[in-house]
């Protein structure tokens, strides 16, 4: 994939007509000098048909908008303005008018169609073309129920993103987070779930109890989180489909900082007993917790490596919070953070290569380091940025930002270059985001 990308860049640079600024390499780690111009015209329909989600010609416009929004938000692409593109005919979808699209300045063309099927479903066709090389790069069709039309759009955007960057997809995914409202000393907190782009927002809890740190199960059907229900802060799971909640660890002890293992069989968490906090794991179906650490001090913030063989966590055993890696059974604990200041909230990249963290010193900043330690890079710089969570492709992070004074929190994303940072719109204030896996 990456090789074909290099080939595209080579072709582009050989063409004298291409302005210098447009000769970009879409490389999500090295940074982009300028986003690549891309044309995503309204998707035509073979015949306008009414569906539960509106008529197919209206959906064609909405699908192209969602695709353009995803690609724009990645920071790697600049969609051509909709007013500067002529409509595409249905029979033109597989026969792109390369001279016309070349005139718009677009390097890549994404066109497709929306078709209503006899069984009530929709097919969204998605075609990706290299405007300069005049070749088809990818084509895919997505069959969805009308109310899931946005997922087809995200899948199409993922197809474009993956084909042009060589990186894994991430747009067709969801985020669970804590929606916040009320005065700083008495915030009301509710679990809420939304698509990665903020659409399809839904509250999962009422706000009666303080809820914190929700995290998805690997199959995305469950959320593990901490709640102050019955004035006992403990870990619960919630079934996303049914809303059913279940206490994970019985007893009066404070249990918190939960996270699923990559295979979904275990929940890693912290428990405080006698003022000492250690890491434990418990079967996701319940039972007796197994203790993994046994140091005087606070061991918390555990996160598994993607293969489940190791765990990164934070501990103040040496004084301030620092990051440690150990085997999944608790053996061979090694410190990996050695920069100035303190480190907390480590989370292992789904690609396995990096560990994201909150750097504490003065303010809070989001950073990444190699999984073996070293190679530290800080990606954000505000008063308090906390608790990173990885996109499914391990190339973008979400986190929450707290404002000095007011304490109001908001959800943001940043890419691994640190240059593409933006706020994720939420109906109220937001904190503790957790990015779910790519949807099937």
């Amino acid at each position: 994939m990456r090789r074909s990308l290099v080939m595209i860049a080579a072709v582009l640079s050989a063409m004298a007509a291409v302005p210098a600024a447009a000769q970009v390499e879409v490389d999500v780690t090295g940074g982009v000098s300028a986003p690549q111009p891309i044309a995503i015209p309204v998707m035509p329909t073979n015949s306008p048909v009414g569906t539960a989600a509106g008529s197919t010609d209206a959906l064609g416009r909405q699908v192209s908008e969602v695709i353009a929004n995803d690609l724009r938000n990645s920071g790697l692409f600049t969609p051509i303005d909709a007013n500067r593109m002529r409509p595409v005919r249905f029979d033109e979808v597989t026969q792109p008018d390369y001279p016309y699209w070349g005139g718009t300045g677009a390097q890549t063309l994404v066109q497709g169609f929306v078709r209503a099927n006899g069984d009530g479903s929709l097919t969204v066709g998605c075609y990706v073309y290299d405007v300069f090389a005049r070749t088809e790069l990818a084509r895919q069709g997505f069959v969805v129920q009308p109310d899931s039309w946005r997922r087809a759009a995200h899948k199409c955007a993922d197809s474009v993103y993956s084909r042009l960057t060589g990186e894994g997809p991430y747009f067709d995914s969801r985020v669970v987070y804590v929606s916040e409202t009320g005065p700083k000393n008495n915030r009301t907190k509710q679990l809420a779930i939304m698509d990665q782009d903020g659409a399809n927002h839904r509250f999962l809890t009422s706000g009666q109890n303080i809820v914190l740190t929700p995290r998805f199960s690997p199959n995305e059907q469950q959320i593990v989180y901490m709640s102050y229900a019955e004035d006992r802060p403990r870990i619960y799971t919630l079934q996303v489909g049914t809303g059913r909640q279940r206490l994970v660890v019985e007893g009066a002890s404070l249990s918190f900082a939960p996270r699923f293992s990559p295979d979904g069989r275990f929940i890693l968490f912290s428990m405080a007993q006698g003022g000492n906090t250690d890491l434990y794991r418990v079967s996701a179906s319940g039972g007796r917790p197994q203790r993994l650490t046994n140091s005087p001090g606070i061991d918390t913030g555990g996160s598994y490596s993607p293969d489940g063989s190791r765990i990164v966590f934070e501990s103040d055993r040496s004084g301030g919070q620092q990051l440690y890696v150990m085997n999944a059974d608790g053996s061979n604990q090694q410190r990996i953070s050695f920069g100035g200041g303190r480190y907390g909230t480590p989370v292992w990249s789904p690609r396995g290569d990096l560990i994201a963290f909150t750097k504490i010193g003065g303010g809070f900043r989001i950073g990444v380091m190699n999984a073996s330690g070293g190679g530290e890079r800080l990606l954000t710089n505000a008063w308090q940025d906390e608790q990173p969570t990885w996109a499914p492709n391990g190339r973008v992070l979400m986190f929450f930002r707290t404002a000095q004074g007011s304490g109001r929190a908001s959800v943001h994303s940043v890419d691994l270059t640190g240059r593409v940072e933006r706020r994720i719109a939420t109906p109220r204030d937001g904190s503790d985001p957790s990015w779910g896996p790519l949807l099937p």
Partner: protein
Amino acid sequence: MNKAIMMVSALSLVTVAGCARRAPEQLPPPPATTAPETGYDTGAGTGQTGTTVVPGSQADFLQSVNADRVLFATDSSDIDSQARSILDSQAQWLARYPNVRITIEGHADERGTREYNLALGDRRATAASNYLQAQGVSASRINVISYGKERPEATGSDEGAWAQNRRAVTVTVGN
């Protein structure tokens, strides 16, 4: 917690000024934006008539002890000499009312990460609990709960506010 504040505020309307709550001397003045003070009057009438304070009640506790809370240094759960004298006064009061149970609420300031602060709040509440137990208060009478940085007392983002928020607050239960 809020209930405790409500009762204190309500009482201060009907009891001698200055008796309601004696904060530790090093407490800085509260910032301009403190907890909302509205609505406390509405709770004043319930269960309290005239200047009568029920012995063994939360109101009695607040009037009798040096303070209902102890404060901590940054990232610390050490009980200093001032905290010891406060907890001594709480232990003495609790010895007079052996049927009273308490919850100790541990808190942290906003400069720590959320999960670490939950553990830190627990460590602080436990430190206060351990001290009270050493003074003869039975462990079975004490419940600890950590609020991390979720329920600040002072809402500013400054040293004075943070100092007030690093606390363990004793609240009587079931009176």
